């Protein structure tokens, strides 16, 4: 058994295991999240039926997937297909963008749409590698104002104005 193949197998199946355990956790908390319906006494149906079946389905497919891949790697000695790209990864940037998105969501009502969207756009431009200062200032400002005016005035979508009416 090739050590690399084993490592690759574990790396490939880890996300599947995570999904499996998430589904299992949801199945465990299901009774606390869904009250038993009146119909449940008469038959198998009720508000819990469909979510339960689906969660069991998720777990079953995960297990079948893990078993199938194990068969391919350990029995047939075939490596799993992976798409390893040579481009360098910028995981910190992804994390920074997720933090920026969450900050946008949390501060939108307080700070206002125009200001928060302009900041978010500027941050994402920076993270995508744009270093042109003029573009980073002008484009987010213009677009967030234009979007606000378009949606608030013509499409009746009331975007949050925030404390500064921005």
């Amino acid at each position, binding site marked *: 058994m090739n050590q690399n193949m084993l490592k690759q197998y574990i790396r490939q199946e880890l996300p599947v295991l995570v999904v499996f355990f998430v*589904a299992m956790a949801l199945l465990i908390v299901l009774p606390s999240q869904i009250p038993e319906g009146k119909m449940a006494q008469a038959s198998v149906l009720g508000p819990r039926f*469909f979510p339960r079946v689906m969660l069991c389905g998720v777990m079953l497919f995960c297990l079948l997937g893990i078993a199938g891949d194990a068969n391919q790697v350990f029995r047939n000695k075939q490596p799993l297909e992976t*798409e390893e790209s040579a481009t360098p990864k*910028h995981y910190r940037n992804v994390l920074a963008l997720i933090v920026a998105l969450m900050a946008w969501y949390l501060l939108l009502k307080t700070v206002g749409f125009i200001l928060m969207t302009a900041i978010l756009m500027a941050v994402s431009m920076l*993270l995508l590698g*744009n270093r042109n200062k003029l573009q980073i200032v002008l484009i987010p400002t213009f677009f967030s104002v234009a979007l606000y005016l378009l949606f608030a005035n013509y499409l009746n979508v009331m975007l949050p104005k925030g404390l500064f009416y921005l």
Partner: protein
Amino acid sequence: MLEYFIPSVLSCFQPINLLSMVLGLAVGLTVGAMPGLSGVMGITILLPFTFKMPAAAAMITLIGVYCGSTYAGSISAILIKTPGTAAAAATVSDGYALNQKGRAQEALSLALYASVFGGLFSGIVLLTVAPQLAKVALKFNSADYFMLALFGLSVISAVGGKRLLRGMTMAALGVFISTIGIDPAEGVYRFTFGTRILAKGIGLVPALIGLFAISELLSQTEKGIHATGKTEQSTASSRYGWRYIWQYRWTMIKSSIIGVIIGATPGTGAAIASFMAYGEAKRSSKHPEEYGKGSPEAVVASESANNGVTGATLIPMLTLGIPGDVVTAVLMGALMIQGLNPGPKLFTDNGPITYTVIIGFLLVNVLMLYMGKLAIRVFGQICKIPYSILLPVVLAFCLVGAYACSNSIYDCLIAIVFGIIGYLAEKFDFSTTPMLIGLVLGGIAESNLVRALTVSKGSLLIFVQRPISLLFLTLTVLFIVYNLRSRRRQKRVDQSIEREGG
């Protein structure tokens, strides 16, 4: 019908009706191409303006919005990997892949021509066999609807990605997510964890925006790319005219038929039709391996199906007074505001207006070909913008689009969370398309399964006793078996090529 035909054609060419078509299409193309803005929103915006219009002109305006928005969803799907509407969800993977190969113009033109074909096909069906088709569609009961949803879910065997079991996992997760919120049968809350955010369930459009657009932004950020999108030298769409699309005629016809059947069935929708047509086109294609990687045929299939739905949804609405979806419900409201009562008598009591609307529908689709070309040229410039500018603008649009769905900030959070899910899923070889199919069909499947089993007192025989259910069950089994066999065959071919190469 014949006595109304010529006066109705002449009426359609009156300046007010022609102007109504242009206005409706302009609004439809704009809202459809903007992620998060739906045809319903466009129709609702224009509705007050139609109150003082003549009845036919008012309806033609709104139908213009409907057809334009259904087509235009593909523009943003192809250019920025964000389907403007749920109906264009099946177009995303292949349309965007074509764009990435520098074939955006081809994809946009194919989508336009296929949409026009699908629209005209459904318009002709609406004009000729509307009452008969409506009668068949009305015979559907809950067991038939469940089987129809199951058949829709079987499409996953074709679009589940390289690893089918991971695709099926995502589909089951999608269906599970669709159960969050209020239970359709008993009205109890499910998996809300005591929060208001989840109480009304997961909206399809915010989820769609997250899965396809925000996830793409995250993955581009990971790569750190700030180059320009690939574009073709020529922006002339004439290279991809009718003559070019003629090679896909059978795919268009088949997909339009699927669109018409699904559209005439109340409670379904264009998204289901396009996924089914996609699956069927892949099954019968000579190059199924190209699907998902930029197949022009796939774009043609999904677009002719979703526009094939547009005319067909009007069939139960006009002939029986049954709105099949939200759009037709709003259109029905507009019809009633004009003093017309949808139903069998509409064709006899208000024949001239009704046939003017139907022929107007056909003309709207013809006009869409020209206005769509203009829209392609305008929106086609998007490809020339560097990603480091384009993607943040798209992000802002997406977040506003998610917010606009129900004027709620919670929808933005849902879009962000689904963006993260989509990014991680693609990273670990989980295809996101099955999750979307699960989300679309989950509600229909569950409510009809519960209803059918309640009626049959738990007996599963209800699903094989009726011819319609049995037909869908057979089709589902055949479809899955066929796709699994082709997968196995493809795998064997790949292995033998690998062995020969090695």
